[in-house]
């Protein structure tokens, strides 16, 4: 009994490690075959339309609401210390440093990541990828790499839009609704947010998240068993794995970027 369950745990660990190995090789293959994605940039633009533009509405709406909630909650807390003028700083910092990249990435993983996995998985199940190989066209170069770069480029743009909408939402609630002074809301925000420390680090985060999500989504699709259950299982795994990866990476990146800052 005990021996069996230990063996099972060991087996699953080995399988997991093996899959990570495959994923890394897959990532390297994407890097090596990225020429087409840039030479024929139209392919990448097309995928940016699919993964980026389709996530746009959910990102904008979520950004607005998250910003409005930040406005309410932030005001409640700051008011206790009589520093509600700092609301602009609080809203902008939380969004640009954390919520923008992280929440946009989580939304992107569930909206675009799952779609990518399902699409690639179905292309594999219906032998479209084999057909492409038989036509001497490398599916990694033609299908996978453009989707990868489209995701990596879209992710920071979406995160920036999320943050912008969020700040607007915070402004609506804080200034228009509650009545925080408009001048200090904006000017405090401007003087406190640092380009390199806050904005650039936020962009770096979202690029890393973009790489992680699209790699996971593409790999799960490419590796999915060529059946309906295989593809649906892979789609679920994409959302779960990439969301957890985003949160874990966020902790690591934050630790490196902001450790020791005031």
């Amino acid at each position, binding site marked *: 009994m005990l021996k069996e369950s230990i063996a099972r745990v060991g087996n699953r660990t080995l399988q997991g490690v093996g899959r990570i190995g495959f994923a890394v090789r897959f990532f390297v293959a994407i890097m090596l075959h990225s020429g087409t994605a840039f030479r024929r940039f139209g392919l990448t633009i097309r995928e940016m339309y699919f993964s980026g533009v389709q996530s746009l509405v959910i990102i904008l709406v979520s950004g607005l609401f998250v910003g409005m909630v930040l406005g309410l909650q932030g005001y409640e807390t700051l008011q206790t210390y009589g520093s509600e003028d700092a609301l602009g700083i609080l809203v902008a910092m939380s969004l640009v440093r954390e919520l923008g990249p992280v929440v946009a990435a989580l939304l992107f993983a569930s909206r675009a990541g799952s779609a990518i996995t399902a699409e690639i998985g179905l292309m594999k199940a*219906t*032998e*479209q990828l*084999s*057909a*492409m*190989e*038989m036509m*001497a*066209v490398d599916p990694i170069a033609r299908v996978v790499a453009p989707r990868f770069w489209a995701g990596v480029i879209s992710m920071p743009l979406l995160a920036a839009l999320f943050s912008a909408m969020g700040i607007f939402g915070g402004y609506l609630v804080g200034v228009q609704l509650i009545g925080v002074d408009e001048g200090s809301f904006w000017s405090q925000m401007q003087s406190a947010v640092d380009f390199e420390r806050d904005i650039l680090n936020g962009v770096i985060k979202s690029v890393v998240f973009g790489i992680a999500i699209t790699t996971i989504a593409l790999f799960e699709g490419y590796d999915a068993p060529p059946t309906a259950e295989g593809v649906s299982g892979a789609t679920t795994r994409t959302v779960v794995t990439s969301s957890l990866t985003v949160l874990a990476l966020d902790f690591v990146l934050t630790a490196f970027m902001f450790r020791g800052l005031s």
Partner: protein
Amino acid sequence: MQHDNLVEIEDVAFDYGARPVLKGINLTAKRGQVIAIMGSSGCGKTTLLRLIGGQIKPCQGAVRVAGESLGELNQAGLYRLRRNMGMLFQFGALFTDMTVFDNVAFQLREHSDLPEDAIRDMVLMKLHAVGLRGAAHLMPAELSGGMARRVALARAIALDPQLVMYDEPFAGLDPISLGITGNLIRRLTDTLGLTSILVTHDVHESLKIVDYVYFVSEGVIVAEGTADDIRESDLSYVHQFVHGEAEGPVTFHYPAAPYVEDLRLGRQSA
């Protein structure tokens, strides 16, 4: 140097994991010929085509196309060879995110720098040959099974390859399209000087157009010969196949436990 035999398969064995599918196949396709591979469902015909296309590697033996052994080629070499191959997949495998036109144009766009005008003409010619020029703007999801297969056929021959492999080109076609498709395969082979390998169950239609036939069973070639040889063959296997008889050496069933045992008829009481 020109090889007389475009495809040579020598003592090839293949298994998916534990189950051996092919156990020592010998087969050659001469340039300019239409050869057919026949055999009962699940005997490994598609597998054989995948071996010729280099998508899977044989466990034993060698597959040579145009004199080059596929096992020794790297990816670039394989892709170079495949530019001269067309393959009609058993289930079409059309790109579902492109129109019929773009499907047929795919290889032209990927592998040539032809202007869009020239591509358009070439694609419409191929589509005309399979009778679907009018369907050029449709998406694959809007096609019937037989139409999809004909589009896949047009796509397989888009680059005028030297070798075309057809995995069941006749399945799901009505008698009229079936005859036309058969003639098309023959005509393409003759006029373009290409070589065709046909996997099919349709004995009568294919015997009209093929030069040479191989019968596969249990992982080996059990009979081969020209169309006339096959029609007149008195090998029980071939006879059964040509005349579609239920009783004979070909078993319809995938290997299984005895039927009575499986249905548990032996156990009378509840």
